[in-house]
């Protein structure tokens, strides 16, 4: 019955897979989003978001513990029956597909604005699809290893970022809670979404080798993500003035633009190019679980056929219609709503029934 023993994840891979899925485009825009809503108190909202995400992650892990050898899409048919279960799987696949698509077009958008302004969007996405295919065709294990390696490869980023510390004004951060708690609560609505990616607990749990570390792992992943966000936010808040920051779409990139060496100008270009790595670790789990769910839905063991289809459809879609900046925003909005449901509401709703069904099952056995 152990369907996933061949494809196992180590604890480190589990942590970095989830962490990789969480940190993505958000890092580039979050300082502005928070500054618009909560001014420089945004970091408190972030902590609130982190708390919420961690709690829900723990619920997810607890839920998955009931069926240690099954992913969420193996559980759906058990609880909802065959047909409703299939609908749920399809919805899950669509959710992951939407997320992956939004991530891909957003990444393409940024690259088109900052780096390759002449290259059409579908070419950029196609370019991105090639290495993604190489990784994802290897399954969860390959994605885990990829997330691991990319993590080492991005370790240099904070060190270079420290060169920006020379020009920070810590006074920008004061006073704390200057406009009361209300804006902070408002902003935490969006920070909650910055942690999307922990829902891979649904999928990654049965692949995990040492299941006893699942809860710890997911908490570490969330915390790691929180640390990344908070360091970026605080540096941005301290570097830009509270009003200036709202004018940049991607303040984090503007921060990099200011860093300069005697032999290197425009570090932001190098940074954004290598940020593609981080973007790929965000998109690839979503793509994988989208095609994984859809392949299971059609009863196929090999996910590669659907993967090829997906990775071809995205460039074709962009070739037919290149989304504008506003489209991107709308798409992200759609993802946020679905994410709110699938990552936050679903575990809260499903936890009870799953626990009960398991208890009933246990009762029958006894």
């Amino acid at each position: 019955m152990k369907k996933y023993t061949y494809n196992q994840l180590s604890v480190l891979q589990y942590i970095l897979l989830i962490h990789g899925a969480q940190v993505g485009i958000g890092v580039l825009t979050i300082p502005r989003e928070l500054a618009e809503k909560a001014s420089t108190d945004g970091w408190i909202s972030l902590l609130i978001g982190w708390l919420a995400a961690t709690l829900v992650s723990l619920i997810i892990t607890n839920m998955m513990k009931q069926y240690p050898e099954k992913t969420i899409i193996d559980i759906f048919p058990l609880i909802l029956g065959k047909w409703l279960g299939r609908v749920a799987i399809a919805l899950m696949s669509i959710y992951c597909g939407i997320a992956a698509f939004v991530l891909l077009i957003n990444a393409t958008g940024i690259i088109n604005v900052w780096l390759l302004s002449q290259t059409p969007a579908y070419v950029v996405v196609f370019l991105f699809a090639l290495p993604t295919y190489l990784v994802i065709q290897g399954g969860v294990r390959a994605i885990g290893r990829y997330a691991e390696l990319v993590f080492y490869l991005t370790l240099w980023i904070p060190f270079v970022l420290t060169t920006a510390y020379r020009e920070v004004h810590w006074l920008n951060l004061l006073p704390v809670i200057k406009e009361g708690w209300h804006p902070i609560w408002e902003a935490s609505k969006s920070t909650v979404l910055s942690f999307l990616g922990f829902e891979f607990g649904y999928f990654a749990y049965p692949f995990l080798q040492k299941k006893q570390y699942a809860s710890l792992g997911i908490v570490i992943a969330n915390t790691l993500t929180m640390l990344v966000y908070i360091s970026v936010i605080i540096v941005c808040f301290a570097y830009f003035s509270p009003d200036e920051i709202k004018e940049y779409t991607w303040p984090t990139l503007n921060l990099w633009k200011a860093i300069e060496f005697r032999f290197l100008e425009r570090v932001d270009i190098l940074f954004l190019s290598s940020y593609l790595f981080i973007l790929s670790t965000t998109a690839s789990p979503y793509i994988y679980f989208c095609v994984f769910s859809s392949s299971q839905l059609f009863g196929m063991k090999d996910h590669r056929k659907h993967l090829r289809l997906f990775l071809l459809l995205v460039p074709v879609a962009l070739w037919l219609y290149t989304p504008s900046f506003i489209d991107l925003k709308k798409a992200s909005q759609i993802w946020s709503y679905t994410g709110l449901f699938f990552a936050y509401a679903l575990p809260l709703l499903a936890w009870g029934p799953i626990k009960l069904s398991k208890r009933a099952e246990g009762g029958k056995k006894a």
Partner: protein
Amino acid sequence: MRGWLRRKKTSVKDRMSHSSEPIRVREISERLSDNLAELNAIFTLTPDLVIRTFACQHIEGMVTLVYLNGLVDKNSINNNVLRPLLSHPEGEKSSVFDLLSVGKVSVAYDFRKVETEILLGSSLLFIEGRKEVLVIEANGWPQRAIEDPQLEAALKGGHQGFVETDTQNIALIRRYIPNRELKIKEMWLGERGLTKLSIIFLADVTNPEILQELEDRLKSIKVDSILNASELEEYIEDNPYSLFPQFLTSERPDSVASHILQGKIAVVVDRSPSVLIGPATFVSFFQNVDDYGTRWPVATFIRMLRYLAFLIATFLPAIYIALISFNYEVIPLDLILSVGESREKVPFPPLLEAFIMELTLEMLRESGIRLPAPIGQTVGIVGGIVIGQAVVQAGIVSNIMVIVVAFTAISSFIIPNYDMASAVRLIRFLMMILAAMFGFVGIIVGLMALIGHLITLESLGVPYGSPLAPARFGDWKDLFIRLPLWKMKDRPLSAHTIEEQRQGDNRPREDG
């Protein structure tokens, strides 16, 4: 024409099914003349076949010695086979078998065996009135003396390299590991050029599953002949379309012994001076036995240098192209001006410029390899002075491009493994094209694809990217840095050994 083709096809099929269903083979007859007739029928147009019939009256009667001239050791035949048989004093009772003063003598009963044994260099003794034939191992063929290995020069290790005879090579390995757990599995391969393979491993260390996997793959090969170890490698790789070598090859017995001690498996191929080692990981191509003989800080420095060289050899021309033709805003103004000045007269786009230079270099390199040494030096002169200098003065290639290409070439020589260095050469060109099309984004996408490929690649079912991804931190002691040997108490986890510890506490005693 058609009929001819069809006939040809069936003959190939026949040959392939040859091994699976045994056809009736003639057995050795009691009559010597019958046997000789059969031999003559098998070996037509074989002038180097020596058939010597002589009387050995007082022992057995007529006997015939058969061997292929040139594949036997003549001294041994004369002194240990012919002389005792011919000059045996009358009256003393004895059998032929006892008279042969040769180490290994076996018996064959049919002509299939006779045929192979003769072709492999054994001498056969047919005896009148016996339905068996004695196979005398007195092989000896043209051989090279044991020399310093050509491809991997040794700084500190032993200076003996493998030769073309497998028994010698196995002996060289055994000299390093005189242990009863060093086991050898023999295997024969090839329909026409029968080749002996010897799988060498430490029975109580090597993972039996990996060994089984290797054996299964070797057994499934059906080919005419295996000419050398690298050819064999191509048949048993995990991913035949990969650019990367998935087995290590070595010409040095100390290197092979070191790998066997780590729990890996070596395959000695007869007639090939290099030995296959598997499972290999990506980083194992950057390690060298000499590392363990140098002081550890120095060895660490050299290791780092190699990884840096790998990155430079793969990416430097690509980065240069990206900087010049795409992302010139990254370079500070003063620098870009001086680069622009040197490129002023060059009519080609950077990619073409780089291709011209890189291809020239690769051609110089290839021409140098096959040329006899005295002419080889002229290649250097032509390459270095004529092309290097003239090409810049003529304004075809910029100064900086020559520097970049030269730097890349030097870096690619630092990579200790020839196969890996060759892989890097090809990847470099792919990266250059990507960089010319998409700038830094192209390079990063290329790197992503490279990483994606490396982490999904396997060698004998063992992850190629280990110990980086999947991370095995225990092995990191011997990865980018080389810690003192007494700190590496366990065998590398990447080899999946069944016995983990390799040494006890050997930390040198400190003062006080």
